């Protein structure tokens, strides 16, 4: 078996300091379907970006077909014979299939004119060559997503890709379309192509992959023949942790449920059922964790809870009062606050001062304004107070938020949300991308809130965080709650893993989840 691509000791550090790939070495054999699995943040997408030239590694080397490869841009990668099918399909919606196929490499007549017939011919030829049917004259926007993906694949093949990278290809497909895709990939393998396939869906990995590379925490854990591993094995390797002993002391006093969610379902714009009858309670004085791989409905769930999205069905009640249909402001006023998963996009307005960021949820309230008039004096005092209390490193309350470090920006968000003294705190990935010190502080604050009798909902992709902080944990997969852990004392990442990856599920979980 010859190796078509080899990555040696890749080190990739992003500008914000995050180490995405550390000492990553992988050998991809020719003529295989090679799956790369790992949690979000494990580094697999980064590795693919490095291979395809979208990013450059600080250290390490890549060998393609035995020769050292200097890949500085997708252009280089394409030229060498590497093709990539991105999650967000790179197609121009109002152009036809044939036009998208030959884009950038257009066949010409008399040097000046576009040879549209030839473009169609080429498309049909390539389609036939690889056994992938596509309608050359239809516009992309009129085609179902499975067909669009096929066009993407053909595009790469047309450019003589010998190595095809597919990033989570089945995430947008129906089961039927997935079957078709797999047949396609197997056919391509027969024809001599090599395929790298990023996925979370372990069932599919077992179904189609010859070899599997498991990544975790920016490193490669192992590369093995797919046949040697069961789904459980893979799941454990993906998620496995040394048993972390760091746990919060048990909650002081568990109160009654403060937030009740019943049969919450949500269908999105594309007709996909993203949340399927979600039910759970959050009690006063506990931290309920939401574990799961990003993309299983957690984001939508949180946006529904906080009023930024309307559910299709279901009930949400905060201390008996229904929240469904209320505006985000009303929901806040009822006592629910939200630490959003993307602090830059949503949590703060970077261009303006800390003061202006602190008052987002309370500028209209008494104490900060009289009627229409803002009381800047009280606002400044309040800001100074928050800066001190939450240890925010900033020159003054009048500095723009953009000049703060990530950790401090998150502190601004947390300071604002927690100082509203809410009954329920919804925290989504609250320590993502921040320094250890700030992370410590956020954890401490959540614990203190818990001990003061608040109910906290913590969604996180960081299993250590979940294990450390949560009183109970529910696991989401494919829009459903598939597991509920009531007693966290002996639970480890290995226990959560299989549920997170859809390998395992508890039956009739909903009945158990309510307190």
């Amino acid at each position, binding site marked *: 078996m010859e190796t078509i691509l080899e990555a040696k000791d890749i080190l990739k550090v992003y500008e914000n300091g995050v180490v995405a790939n550390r000492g990553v070495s992988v050998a991809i054999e020719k003529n295989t379907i090679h799956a790369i699995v790992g949690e979000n943040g494990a580094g697999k997408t980064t590795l693919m970006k490095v291979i395809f030239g979208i990013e450059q590694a600080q250290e390490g080397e890549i060998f393609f077909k035995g020769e050292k490869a200097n890949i500085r841009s*997708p*252009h280089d990668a*394409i030229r060498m014979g590497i093709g990539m099918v*991105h*999650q*967000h*399909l*790179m*197609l*121009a*919606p*109002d*152009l036809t299939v044939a*036009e*998208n196929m030959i*884009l*950038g*490499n*257009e066949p*010409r007549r008399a040097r*000046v*004119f*576009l040879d*549209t017939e030839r473009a169609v011919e080429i498309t049909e030829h390539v389609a036939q060559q690889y056994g992938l049917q596509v309608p050359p004259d239809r516009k992309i926007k009129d085609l179902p997503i499975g067909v669009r993906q096929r066009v993407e694949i053909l*595009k790469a093949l047309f450019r003589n890709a010998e190595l095809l990278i597919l990033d*989570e290809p089945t*995430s*947008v497909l*129906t*089961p039927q379309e997935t079957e078709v895709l797999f047949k396609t990939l197997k056919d391509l393998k027969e024809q001599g192509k090599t395929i790298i396939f990023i996925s*979370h869906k372990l069932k599919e990995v077992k179904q189609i992959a010859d070899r599997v590379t498991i990544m975790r925490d920016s490193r490669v854990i192992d590369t093995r023949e797919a046949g040697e591993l069961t789904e459980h094995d893979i799941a454990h390797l993906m998620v496995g942790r040394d048993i972390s002993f760091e746990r919060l002391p048990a909650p002081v006093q568990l109160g009654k449920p403060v937030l009740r969610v019943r049969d919450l*379902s949500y*269908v*999105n*714009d*594309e*007709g*996909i*059922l*993203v949340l*399927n009858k979600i039910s759970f309670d959050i009690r006063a004085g506990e931290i309920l964790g939401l574990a799961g791989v*990003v*993309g*299983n*409905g957690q*984001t*939508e769930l949180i*946006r529904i809870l906080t009023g*930024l*999205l*309307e559910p*299709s*069905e279901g009930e949400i009640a905060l201390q008996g009062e229904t929240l469904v249909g209320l505006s985000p402001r009303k929901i806040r006023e009822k006592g629910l606050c939200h630490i959003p998963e993307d602090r830059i996009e949503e949590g703060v307005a970077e261009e303006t001062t800390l003061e202006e960021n602190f008052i987002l949820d309370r500028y209209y309230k008494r104490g900060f304004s009289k009627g229409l008039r803002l009381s800047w004096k009280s606002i400044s005092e309040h800001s100074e107070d928050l800066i001190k209390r939450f240890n925010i490193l900033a020159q003054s309350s009048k500095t723009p938020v953009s000049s703060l470090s990530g950790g401090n920006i998150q502190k601004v968000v947390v300071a604002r949300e927690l100082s509203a003294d809410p009954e329920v705190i919804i925290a989504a990935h609250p320590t993502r991308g921040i320094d250890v010190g700030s992370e410590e502080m956020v954890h401490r604050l959540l614990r203190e809130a818990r001990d003061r009798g608040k109910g906290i909902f913590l969604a996180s992709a960081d299993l250590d965080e979940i294990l450390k902080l949560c009183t109970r944990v529910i696991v989401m*997969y*494919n*829009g*459903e709650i598939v597991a509920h852990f009531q007693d966290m004392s002996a639970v480890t990442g290995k226990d959560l893993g299989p549920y997170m990856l859809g390998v395992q599920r508890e039956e009739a979980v909903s009945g158990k989840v309510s307190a």
Partner: protein
Amino acid sequence: MSPLLKSILSAEFGFAIFRVMTPLLFAAIGVSISSLAGTINISMEGTMLISAFVGVVVSAFTESLVLALLAGVAAGMAMGAILSYFHLRLKADIILAAIALNLFASGITVFLLFIASGDKGSSSSLKSLVFPELHIPLIKSIPVLGTIISGHNIMTYGVILAIVVFYIIIFKTPLGLRIRAVGQNPDAAESVGINVNRTRMWALMLSGFFGAFGGLYLSMGYVSWFARDMTAGRGWIAIAAATLGGYLPLGTFLASLLFGAVNALAIYLASLQFPSELISLIPYLATVIALTIYSARALKKRTHKVEEAKRVGKITEVKELGGSS
């Protein structure tokens, strides 16, 4: 039949429509081609003005129509190049930069006119040339149709050719394909190795190219001199026409025809003491209505029922939900 109606339906009026439409359509093509690449060029007013001026001056000093044409077109393309430099390289907002360029053109043309000829505001002392009219043998003898079609300035025949050229460029050349791709999905274009900025630059220069003809016609066909701000808002009308026409060749042509017809009608009605203003505003109003319908349709979200849901699925990309901007 009322005299008003008779005049409107006359062949002379048909002739007038094409005459009035000529500069509009040139400029509208310019707006359309730049929009297709995602960088709408609203500096047509200024581009036409500059070309009108350059054409007059060059023709007066060189006594060559050809040189004037070349110079005018070059000037138009230069405007496109300047806009692309400020927008693509220096990251200026394309709308604001275009407004600034319009202002610039308005001032510099009068300024340079003074330096070149001592005229203040209108090129009275310059002996500039005009583009010839074409009287087509045989056709001109056909009743009604002949009056409408024959006898136009060569530029008017040119604009019909321009629409065809526009169509060919956009749909039949690699550059046109790239322009459309860049306008629809710049990332997709980038991923196949297309230089998005360079393509946009070409689109802007092409828009300057077409706009230039509109300006040249104004000062060397419609009338035979240059006067300050002689474009009189045609560049803005061109934006309306291009938008109404969906930025595509056929639509742009029909919309410009509409605006041209209304404009011609307005001129005629004004001489009759009839409130031409009420007619003139119709195409603009139509554009707003069309824009609204188009936007409303694009926005229509179907709220799905749970039972109708296609499948239970995991989505990996988290799109902008719940109140997109």
